[in-house]
């Protein structure tokens, strides 16, 4: 029997407080308002005072509206019927399909026992040299794309998704512009990946609290499929909106903010989601790619900063290309030793030389005379940018490595590259 309470004693932001008994922390409730029924989640208990965040927002809630506790936390349905479907952050259909209520399970489940994890070992080839050669993507990796507004991060996300060899794609949109939602839907449809995709979309005009549920919904579903043996790719955009929603609720709850208004547990909250990326022994895997927009292009902003400490590297998207500095795939060492023996040497030295090139550019712009060495670097930098950094390239890893040797050989003397002799002997292209 579910008792109904109809005395709301406080409404502040999207959080309401009722007096009720025998309520569990994290439990779900239904709030019946003039406008319809909304779900709400318990976020604080203080004796008989129960605070709930209302998923649909508190606008229009009357103090005498009915609140009914459901005795279970937020749940999501799991079955093959999810494929090709589009839902809101709270799991309601956004397409015209039926609501799904079979095989429900709780979201935000416990974390994986570290001793059951395995070392990731499968490279995900993308055909983009800046990823494959310099920052190889690995199955079960969690990798954010740091970017500023206006960069083509959503197209990049979509493109990686199109080319990645996975069984299933779960797309989580948080504060997504409606246009972008349509872009994802249409692009996936056009390339025939929609039938193996599941969308949980919160658009910018939807209530804030729903945004908070998107990553948990996506990852709970992904986890079920991964345990079923599927290789799942989870795409999240944009995690900064998620963090901003956390901030909004925390401030409403009068929590002491730690840094620029964000709650002190921002790191733990983000980590709880990102750490769902996993490669199950004898089962499938979850790989997470998440866009994190940096307000003011500032990587020290709390959201990208905390994210960077959690994820296994990061890709910087800047001026339409993936930045060679700062971008880093921490798991690349797991796979790039088995690709080709020159992979690591090329990766390291080409970036070091590109850094030297950048210094030379600086000197040049200040009007200094260029030495013979500077001239070489200038030539090198130009070719590197054009032939390897461009995001529209689509060449296999081996082709990209060969291209690297070709560039080095045509400009430098072997000793100038600092690559060890055995590799020089094998790959150096004689003029």
């Amino acid at each position: 029997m579910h008792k109904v309470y109809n005395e709301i004693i406080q409404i502040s932001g999207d959080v309401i407080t009722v007096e009720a008994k025998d309520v569990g922390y994290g439990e779900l409730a239904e709030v019946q308002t003039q406008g319809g029924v909304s779900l709400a989640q318990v976020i604080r208990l203080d004796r008989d005072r129960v605070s709930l965040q209302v998923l649909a927002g508190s606008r229009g809630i009357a103090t005498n509206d009915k609140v009914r506790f459901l005795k279970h936390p937020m749940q999501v349905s799991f079955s093959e019927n999810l494929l090709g479907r589009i839902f809101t952050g709270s799991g309601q259909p956004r397409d015209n399909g039926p609501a799904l209520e079979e095989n429900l399970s709780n979201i935000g489940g416990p974390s994986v026992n570290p001793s059951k994890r395995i070392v990731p070992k499968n490279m995900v080839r993308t055909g983009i040299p800046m990823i494959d050669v310099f920052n190889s993507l690995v199955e079960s990796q969690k990798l954010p794309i740091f970017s500023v507004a206006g960069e083509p991060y959503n197209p990049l996300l979509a493109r990686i998704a199109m080319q990645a060899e996975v069984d299933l794609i779960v797309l989580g949109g948080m504060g997504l512009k409606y246009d972008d939602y349509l872009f994802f839907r249409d692009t996936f449809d056009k390339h025939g990946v929609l039938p193996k995709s599941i969308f949980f979309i919160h658009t910018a005009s939807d209530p804030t609290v729903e945004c908070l549920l998107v990553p948990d919904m996506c990852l709970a579903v992904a986890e079920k499929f991964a345990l079923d043996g599927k290789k799942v790719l989870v795409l999240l955009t944009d995690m900064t909106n998620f963090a901003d929603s956390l901030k909004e609720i925390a401030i409403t709850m009068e929590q002491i903010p730690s840094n620029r208004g964000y709650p002190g547990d921002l790191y733990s909250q983000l980590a709880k989601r990102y750490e769902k990326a996993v490669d199950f022994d004898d089962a499938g895997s979850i790989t997470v790619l998440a866009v994190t927009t940096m307000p003011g292009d500032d990587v020290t902003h709390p959201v990208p900063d905390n994210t960077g400490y959690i994820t296994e590297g990061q890709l910087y998207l800047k001026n339409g290309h993936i930045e060679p500095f700062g971008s880093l795939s921490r798991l690349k060492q797991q796979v790039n030793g088995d690709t080709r023996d020159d992979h690591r040497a090329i990766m390291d030295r080409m970036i070091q030389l590109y850094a030297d090139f950048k210094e030379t550019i600086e000197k040049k712009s200040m009007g200094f005379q260029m030495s013979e060495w500077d001239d070489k670097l200038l030539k090198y930098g130009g070719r590197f940018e054009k032939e390897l950094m461009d995001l529209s390239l689509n060449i296999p890893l081996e082709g990209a490595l060969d291209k690297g040797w070709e560039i080095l050989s045509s400009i430098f003397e072997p000793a100038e590259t600092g690559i060890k002799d055995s590799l020089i002997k094998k790959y150096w292209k004689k003029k």
Partner: protein
Amino acid sequence: MADHLRKGKVIGVNGNMVSVEFETNVIQNEVAYIVQDKDRLKSEVIRIRGRRAELQVYEDTDGVRVGDDVEFSGELLSVELGPGLLGQVFDGLQNPLPRLAEAHGFFLKRGVYLNALEEEQKWEFTPTVNVGDKLRAGMRVGFVPEKIFEHNIMVPFNIAKEVEVLEVVEKGKYDLKQVIAKVKDANGKTHMLTMKVTWPVKVPIKAYIKKIKPEKPLVTKIRIIDTLVPVAIGGTFCTPGPFGAGKTVLQHLLSRHADVDIVVIAACGERAGEVVEVLKTFPELIDPKTKKTLMDRTIIICNTSSMPVAARESSVYTAVTIAEYYRQMGLNVFLLADSTSRWAQAMREMSGRLEEIPGEEAFPAYLESRIASFYERAGIVQLRDGKVGSVTIGGAVSPAGGNFEEPVTQSTLKVVGAFHGLSRDRANARRYPAIDPLQSWSKYESFIDAEALKSATAILKRSDEINQMMKVVGEDGTGIEDFIDYLKGEFFDAVYLQQNAFDKIDEATIAERQTYVFNLISDIIKSKFQIESKDEARKFFLELRQKFINWNTLEFQADDFKKIEQDILEQIKSKKAV
């Protein structure tokens, strides 16, 4: 005991903090359990006000209700100490993770706690004392073999005065529950000793005669550390750095190569994947000193970022307590904590929930004293049996935004003996390990000759100055001598300070080789060269660098090593001014 009957009821839940109304009395920092359906959720009392106590819960609090029962245990948060710790993987509360996985599969089930040590396992005990012997806390009554060590079974550390041995068992196999000796303390009270003891994690073990000043260098086999910013056995250091600067890789290298007996790794609030790497690689790596796998000398305490936050706070204490325990056997223990910032953040989260008045960046006011008392648990001590044991602590720090001015870094710098600051610029330029040689410091002494070191650090500074200057006046405005100094600094950095962690030979350099190579480099730095043009100078040093990099990948004093050495010497000779 009446203590077991002490109960309370939940009256509030806020994240992982639960408020409880209690009936009789409670003890600050005692362990309590929230009884929730079938689950018993472990928690710790962290504040008491009137009849209301606040608990931090070491588990997810979903589903906890107002009115749920709470049982107080009367014990402070403790760990089990005894044979069987080596090679183990525990969470922050010392639950053995592999055995949890066996029992419960992929996920960490809430409210499940296992004994850290397997009580039924039998160990071959050899007594070393006789009836009537007088002993003090921390002195051994016998030992069992554990992996490659003699694991001492000691008089419990909390017995203040001398005890007399009343009984001791004969050599043979015993499990952890069996009494192996009886001792009588000064008050006439008899203590039954088993091979297992428990100890509260937040209390340092002090069963030793005195602390000694750490002076002897701890050889890490990382050249930049051993040469420029060394660590002493029993000393402390911290490694702050922005994300992506290589903190964890550096810690892993240290845990693999450092010349110590036992390594305790505290993976505190960091990525699970990194721990997995250690878990999977260490059993396969052979320690050159002992010829056994590295896992045999390693203990991992792992409370990764997605595991409950409160247990993260306790994980560093669990780790340091285990380290102190092995120190009591006269061993050199190396504790690596990654990352102490996550531990500090766990304190911040709890402080926020307690609504304490926040300090800088919302960290609690007691942050500094907590950090200081943690690092103070390091040290080299003279034990009562004449042996010397040590705990060396290295903590990674993850400063927000990579800015070292933040509270955790600053509080840590005040109490450590060496500072290995990682720089984003060096990491971006792929200069690994990315320890900034100009910014970092150490109060300990290196095994490299101090005079030679002076000229080497001088050339680094000079080289950096000239580089800055060249950005303004250009290469043309720089004299050839300055330019050569600049190249010398860059050369020293490239062939010595940088080290290739992915080359089997280059990743670890023994002290003898470091001294050998450093002497040659020192000679180059001090030499004058007859070089006319800058292009010629650049070419000379590039070639030299190339030879050194090849040299670094060859086995010390092997034939090809000597061959390249000759080649290097000849090249130096060809340009050296007489």
